[in-house]
């Protein structure tokens, strides 16, 4: 078969597989780290032991995801060199530096304080423990920042130019603040937060629906709900801004997102395609439902287009993205989920205002709770779809307009890549199943309500500095230890 001996195609598949799999874990841990900061803060402020139990319970799911995230992150770090050597050599000055920053500023901060956050209860002063939790959250989100800086720079290269096949940087800060950076970082920041909020909300809803610790999980559901009031509409708005910047800087991607083959001129209205079957052979949509005059409203909130929207036919076949259907539907799935989650937020807030989420009544809201459970995995699907739009839509470029994907791949035997790709497919399938299994086991087990609550010292008594660290082994059987 042709594909099996095509190093470029196999390397792309491997990058896509490892990136899609890797994305599943940090998307939860970065968002959830903020939630952990909130509940631990609430505990320190109110001394209500339930918040401490929340911190302990959710951190179990946190660390499970964190571990897989670390494991699946390694291939991402090294793959640029193994599979994309010409690309790495061309862009290393900036792109490599940014990956270095991510490691030194973000990963190390997360990893260095994670041990204290997980195992440090009772070993360090609560204030220091809280600091560790904050550092983990800060590190995780800093990592989002640097990765999105690096990826945005590939989308809209700035701060220098290509000279004889190597990108020479003239202004590093301009490269960091490239045109896509601010909106893309914000979009991803809210994406991790929104996904985590609905995972936490969905799991909480499941407990309430199953009559387990109802009062306890009503707390987390309400914390989540308060946060979604701000997050869900903001994310839709930033999503819109992101689409606008695509329209401005990456017209080929916009054309693929809208399955638009023909150009719509400026000064006129144009139809917006809601659903279609794009056909690349005939360069048209086989079947389509359109909203008449809708495109102007979608892009600019008015009827007539100010600037023309170019169709795919404007570019030669080799200069525009393929797999138009994938890009088109990924975009619709992502936006659809964004609106659905905002709708769920509105419905829930309405019920809350009507007093139906009180501890006495919340369990009766069966359909609302079921919808929350249904919504739990939607954030992941939206995030993955969004990245498909972003990176498949960028093709045929690895660095938009500068380096073609076909020129970026290492000259290595296809059999090497096929072997590693197959191994990743097998190993990652096992890891996915195992993580879901152990995750549901943690959820099935539920929170430990008997866990001893550490004493919150007064501010005048910093125990950690003076107490000798004599290790006291835990005598309880392993099963009861947290």
């Amino acid at each position, binding site marked *: 078969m042709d594909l099996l001996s095509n190093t470029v195609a196999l390397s792309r598949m491997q990058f896509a597989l490892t990136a899609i799999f890797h994305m599943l874990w940090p998307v939860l841990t970065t968002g959830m780290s903020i939630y952990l900061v909130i509940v631990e803060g609430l505990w320190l402020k109110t001394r209500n032991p339930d918040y401490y139990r929340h911190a302990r319970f959710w951190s179990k799911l946190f*660390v*499970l995801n*964190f*571990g*897989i995230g*670390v*494991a699946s*992150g*390694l*291939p991402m770090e*090294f793959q*640029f*060199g*193994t*599979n994309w*050597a*010409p690309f*790495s*050599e061309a862009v*290393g*000055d900036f*792109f*490599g*530096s*940014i*990956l*270095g*920053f*991510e*490691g*030194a*500023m973000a*990963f*190390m901060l997360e*990893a*260095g304080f*994670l*041990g*204290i956050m*997980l*195992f440090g209860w*009772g*070993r360090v002063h609560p204030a220091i423990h809280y600091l560790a939790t904050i550092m983990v959250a800060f590190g995780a989100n800093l990592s989002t920042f640097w990765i999105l800086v690096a990826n945005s720079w590939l989308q809209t290269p700035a701060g220098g130019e290509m000279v004889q096949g190597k990108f*020479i940087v003239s202004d*590093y800060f301009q490269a960091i603040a490239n045109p896509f950076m601010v909106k893309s970082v914000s979009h991803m920041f809210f994406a991790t937060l929104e996904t985590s909020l609905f995972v936490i909300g969905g799991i909480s809803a499941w407990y309430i629906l199953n009559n387990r610790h109802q009062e306890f999980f009503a707390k987390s559901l309400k914390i989540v709900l308060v946060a979604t009031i701000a997050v869900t509409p903001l994310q839709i708005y930033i999503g819109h801004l992101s689409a606008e910047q695509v329209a401005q800087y990456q017209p080929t991607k916009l054309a693929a997102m809208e399955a638009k083959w023909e150009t719509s001129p400026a000064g006129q209205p144009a139809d917006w395609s809601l659903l279609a079957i794009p056909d690349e052979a005939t360069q048209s949509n086989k079947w389509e439902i359109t909203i008449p005059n809708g495109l102007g409203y979608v892009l600019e909130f008015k009827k007539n287009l100010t600037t023309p929207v170019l169709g795919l036919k404007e570019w030669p076949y080799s200069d525009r993205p393929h797999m138009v259907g994938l890009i088109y539907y990924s975009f619709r799935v992502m936006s659809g989920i964004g609106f659905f989650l905002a709708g769920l937020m509105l419905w829930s807030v309405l019920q809350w205002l009507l007093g139906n989420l009180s501890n006495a009544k919340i369990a009766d809201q069966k359909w609302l709770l079921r919808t929350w459970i249904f919504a739990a995995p939607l954030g992941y699907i939206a995030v993955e779809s969004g990245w498909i739009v972003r990176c498949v839509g960028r093709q045929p470029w690895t660095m938009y307009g500068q380096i073609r994907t076909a020129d970026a791949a*290492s000259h*290595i*035997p296809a059999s*090497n890549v096929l072997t*590693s790709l197959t*191994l990743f497919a097998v190993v990652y399938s096992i*890891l996915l199943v*195992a993580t879901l299994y*152990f995750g549901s086991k943690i959820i099935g087990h539920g929170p430990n309500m008997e866990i001893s609550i550490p004493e919150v010292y007064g501010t005048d008594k910093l125990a950690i500095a003076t107490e000798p*660290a*004599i*290790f006291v*082994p*835990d005598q309880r059987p392993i099963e009861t230890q*947290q």
Partner: protein
Amino acid sequence: MEALVHFLPQVWFVILALFLFLYVMLDGFDLGVGILSLTSSDEERRSILMTSLGNIWDANETWLVIMGGALFGAFPLAYATILSALYIPIFIMIFGLIFRAVAFEFREHSNNKAFWNFAFGAGSFIAALGQGFALGSVIEGIKVDASGHFIGSTWDWLDWRSMLVALTLIQGYVLIGSTYLILKTEGELQKTHFKTSKIAAITTFIGAIVITIATPIVYEAARTRLFSAPLVYIFAVIPVLGVLLIWALLRSLNREEENTPFIWTILIFLITFVGLGLIVFPYIIPNQITIYQAAAAPSALVFMLTFIGVLIPIMLFYNIYNYVVFRGKVVGSAYGD
């Protein structure tokens, strides 16, 4: 300006060597503990071994990630050429590290602890093997053209010399892992690790001697460099220091001292590293591409230095703090909570 063009790559060579040394020392004992766990049939002992690493393995592994990123940024050509040339050993290492990492998380919740304990040990061994082959082939030299692109074949990394380096590195990891466990355990378990430390010290020593003798014999380039001043003096001093350190290590093991074996082992690692660094310098792909040829633009090196360089003391500070918080013996299979 000319001086700066030379000075900056040298600074980054030293920083990368520091990252690599920190990784090999710190994750070295993690991997060593993992490999040691394979020799035990006692699940309780394996659990204690894993617990001794629970809070730190992740931070230790992060030094590898930082080193990868810094190499990518500071010497893009070396990052691209070395990784694509060593495709197979790199992925061997990655899969090993994946198994090691997930074993920590899954074991916690699994009823079948034995299986994940094994994944931890096997993963550690596979990762160390991949690293050893990669290290061996880099020292041995990678076939490149004049512009530094890889032109060798995909199995170049596999021969008796890289095998020798891989086996010695594994022994070295077992040595530092054993001496770490002397620090972290007590009683019968500690006695076992005095024994494993002694065996590993001797096998590592033998490996190191063979490598030291073989290098100038097999590699003409190394021979001419090593036997001319000023390197010849350093080359003479390092083995002498190495032998003295091994002697000090064995003596501390015989006296069953708790803290010193780990310190002597770190010094042995350090002296080996200094020796290796001196042999390799000024090359980044030995005997082919110098650090000056592979370096990123001076502005990039300054850019990285301002962001990463400043962070090095801070990273070291909170990593040391982490060790201080969790100092002391591991007795149960959880950290007292």
